[in-house]
């Protein structure tokens, strides 16, 4: 095939992702001339909408940013606001927040693996067509997703856009009987979650390993969800209030979502980055299971992202079980929270990576300024960097359909949530 051909690939609507985006790729003389991950979903101005609202409105408002990861938005928000008010949540609240987060990770990762990513690796165009040949896979995904949703429902009254979280605590705590019932349901999913890791590890996956700076929370006591310090594989170790010193957002013409860079360079957030930076917090038998299947950590093969999600489902499910086993409904109401003027920072691990919030409040707790940096926004520059490397490695002389499919699979490794970032994929290839 001549290397002088010019190809233009246009994927006008990327499927099996949350939100609306596109990919434009121009290849000339076997070189990528232009590659744009275009996010055209309109900006949503949430940060502006929050101004002049009471701190009490924030958890329910930010939950509306995303139907898949509302808990993450609530968790980073309450963390930041409590810091602004110099308030420390009680241990029961902290544990219940981790439990709620476990629910979100389980449901979001299960959805991604079974209904969004698996068709790519089994040769189907959608979960619908895959389910005809592999109904057992979809059944497993739905069962795990349901377990996650039931956790969210326990603490948030409903599984989508939960409403139970408040700054300071929860509006109500679950009864001992309800937690016992949920405990039974979660224990029934333990085998499913272990077999899911085995299944992901056994898949024949491409290898696009190349160096990338991973950024994630690291916590010496537990696998990070709700708390930890922001660390990178290049040696960064900061608290949430230092984030702006190292991470800068900027506007690019082809996206309604801001691009974020770490010290001027793209970086990776999300399950694989978390796994790479928190290897010591993975149960030994899971590390051994991965080694037995030829997978060692850290991994810089983005196709291991699905496996990372499977490991995180297992971790989250076990954590949720432990929290519920130790739970007893508190008899006392939590300490009242008194708002004050201040600035607070929150950083937690959404299913897709670190989610950073900053709020400035007045003495009545009204929001004067809100800044939200979601994970997909942080991964955008990295996705473009990965596409450039991986498409080149895969071979730019391949036919357009093959390049389009490979690009979409690469992008889905990141499970991008465009609605969160819009602030995603229709591929337009020009060569």
């Amino acid at each position: 095939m001549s290397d002088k051909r010019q190809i233009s690939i246009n994927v006008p609507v990327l499927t099996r992702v949350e939100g609306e985006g596109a990919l434009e790729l121009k290849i000339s003389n076997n070189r990528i001339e232009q590659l744009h991950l275009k996010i055209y979903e309109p900006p949503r101005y949430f940060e502006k909408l929050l101004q002049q609202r009471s701190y009490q409105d924030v958890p329910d408002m930010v939950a509306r940013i995303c139907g898949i990861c509302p808990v993450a938005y609530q968790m980073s928000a309450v963390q930041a606001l409590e810091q602004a008010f110099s308030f420390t949540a009680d241990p029961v609240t902290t544990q219940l927040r981790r439990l709620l987060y476990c629910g979100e990770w389980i449901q979001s990762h299960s959805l991604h693996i079974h209904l969004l990513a698996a068709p790519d690796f089994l040769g189907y165009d959608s979960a619908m067509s895959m389910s005809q040949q592999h109904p057992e896979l979809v059944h497993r995904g739905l069962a795990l997703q349901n377990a996650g949703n039931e956790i969210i429902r326990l603490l948030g009254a409903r599984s989508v856009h939960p409403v139970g979280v408040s700054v300071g605590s929860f509006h109500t705590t679950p009864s001992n009987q309800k937690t016992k019932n949920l405990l039974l349901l979660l224990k029934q999913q333990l085998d499913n979650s272990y077999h899911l890791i085995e299944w992901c590890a056994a898949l024949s996956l491409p290898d696009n390993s190349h160096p990338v700076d991973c950024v994630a929370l690291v916590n010496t006591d537990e696998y990070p969800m709700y708390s930890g310090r922001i660390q990178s594989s290049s040696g960064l170790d900061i608290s949430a209030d230092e984030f702006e010193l190292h991470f800068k957002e900027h506007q690019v013409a082809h996206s309604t979502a801001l691009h974020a860079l770490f010290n001027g360079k793209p970086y990776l957030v999300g399950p694989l980055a978390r796994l790479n930076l928190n290897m010591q917090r993975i149960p030994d038998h899971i590390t051994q299971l991965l080694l037995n299947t030829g997978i060692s950590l850290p991994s810089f093969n983005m196709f291991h992202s699905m496996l990372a999600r499977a490991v995180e489902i297992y971790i989250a499910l076990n954590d949720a079980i432990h929290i519920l086993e130790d739970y007893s409904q508190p008899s006392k109401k939590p300490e009242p929270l008194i708002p004050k003027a201040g600035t607070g920072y929150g950083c937690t691990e959404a299913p897709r990576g670190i989610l950073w919030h900053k709020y400035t409040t007045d003495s009545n707790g009204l929001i004067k300024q809100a800044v939200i940096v979601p994970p997909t926004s942080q991964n955008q520059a990295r996705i473009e960097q990965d596409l450039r490397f991986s498409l080149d490695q895969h071979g730019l002389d391949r036919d357009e359909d093959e390049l389009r499919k490979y690009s979409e699979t690469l992008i889905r490794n990141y499970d991008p949530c465009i609605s969160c970032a819009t602030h995603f994929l229709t591929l337009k290839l020009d060569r």
Partner: protein
Amino acid sequence: MIHLYAIGSPIEQDNLAWLLVEKLQPQLTAQFPELYIEYFDRPGMQLVNELSDKNRVLLVDTLLSEKSGDIQLLQAEELQLQTSSFSSHGFGVAEALQLSQQLNLLPETLWILGIPADSQAPIDNHTIQQLSEQLLHKLQNIMNHIATDNLQ
């Protein structure tokens, strides 16, 4: 127990089914105590799980079309599969129902009521009143039909 699921989203017109059920809820629950009403904002694939362990479900959703019309009683396979901005990850009600059907997870009896909404025009109070009367009548007919079946 008979479950009535009202589906919607905050997007104008797509919230019509939700609004109508909300308006009728006091009357429906007073007249049919065995009716359990729930609202879902773009449930996506969670709808499969919600349907999987139920016997009788009434599902009320908005049908966006180019013109308004009468409320329709639909079959799951009549719903057009589509990737729309009113669904999550491209999984809407039609996709969830199709997947439920493929996995044999549909309730024993499922009634799907489609509320027509003109996607080009705002919904006025007169239309809401007309549609709520129509919906109430259809729901009453279905509930009475179930009651008659139970007696036989």
